[in-house]
């Protein structure tokens, strides 16, 4: 499955009410490390059906960024059953992203 673009309009449905864990990637167009991480996230999204990966552009969705206390990007937040279960800030390796999902 490809990465899902999430906005305030579909956040509740796609993330909070999701039946599987959702890894949310808070990012922006001007953020180099976010772009560097994207191919790894694409790859994980394509090869899994046990979780979803969602992308939130913090410039368009500043309310969501504020609500979840995102003050640096890239920021990955794992949501399970509508609640934050794990978080990582900064560019990390693919195996570290996978480890983030294993909580």
């Amino acid at each position, binding site marked *: 499955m490809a990465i899902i673009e999430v906005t305030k309009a579909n956040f509740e449905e796609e993330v909070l009410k999701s039946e599987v864990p959702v890894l949310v990637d808070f990012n922006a167009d001007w953020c180099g490390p976010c772009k*560097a991480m994207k191919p790894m996230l694409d790859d994980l999204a394509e090869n899994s059906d046990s979780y979803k990966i969602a992308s939130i552009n913090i410039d368009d969705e500043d309310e969501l960024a504020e609500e979840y206390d995102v*003050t640096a990007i890239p920021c990955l937040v794992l949501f399970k059953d509508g609640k934050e279960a794990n978080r990582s*800030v900064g560019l990390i390796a693919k195996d570290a992203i996978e480890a983030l999902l294993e909580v």
Partner: protein
Amino acid sequence: MYDIIVIGAGPAGMTAAIYARRASKTVLVLEAVTYGGQIINTPDIENYPVTAHISGFDFSTKVYEQAKDLGAEFVFEKAVEIRDENGVKTVVTPKNAYEAKAVILATGSENRKLGLENEDALVGRGVSYCATCDGNFFRKKTVAVVGGGNTALEDALYLADLCEKVYLIHRRDSFRGEEANAERLKARENVEFVYNSNVTRLIAEKRLKAIEVTNRLDGSVRTIELNGLFIAVGRVPENQNFGSLVKLDESGYVIAGEDCHTNYEGIFVAGDTRTKALRQLVTATADGAMAATEAVKYINNL
């Protein structure tokens, strides 16, 4: 066995891979995270010859593709040790071990931390090491910059345009950074200088709320309420894993001259992690070319 293993896929390491491939040597690039190195944090490169503007990410992607197209192999595993048996170098990662005739260290550097309790936990919750990356989150808010070099001064100038108030906290009363930057900063009304002081505590409730600052001269303690703290106290080289083989200087940089030879036969060094006067993109790529050329010479004489 590879001819050359390059450790680190920043501009220095990837340029070394390009030069080594053009000399028909087999090359493996080992990288802990992903290709690019610290240049990916730079939104706009304006001082690299040929192109007036390019983002750091676009730059590294082009170099990566160039190296791959020439046949360099990339594996994303962290090199934790180099062993040498009769001239054969083995580079060990947590998952594998790879052999080569020569090794080029291009491991770069990472942000120096203040070393305060909770510092790691507050990264992304008010603590940042990159003003141009994260400054936008603090529009019209109060922030502090720690440091006295050019990065700290430039960060403070950048943030002064965005934020309501910027404190600049420095452990001395004069700056290592350029005088012109310091003067420009002193002209800003929303910048307050806190001299001879260290940040001694991070005060947080879910996210950073305030910092405690201690004056080094009289020991007085002051609490500054703020939203963000930008730490710009320099960088540290990332080669502690290899210090048993190659000589490092007192700051941890690998000792080598312009020819990029370390003290150890068959191990070369390129980029920011080498002892050098100027750490810039253009000197990193130059080192990559030099280190690869010297490594090729070394292999051809074996």
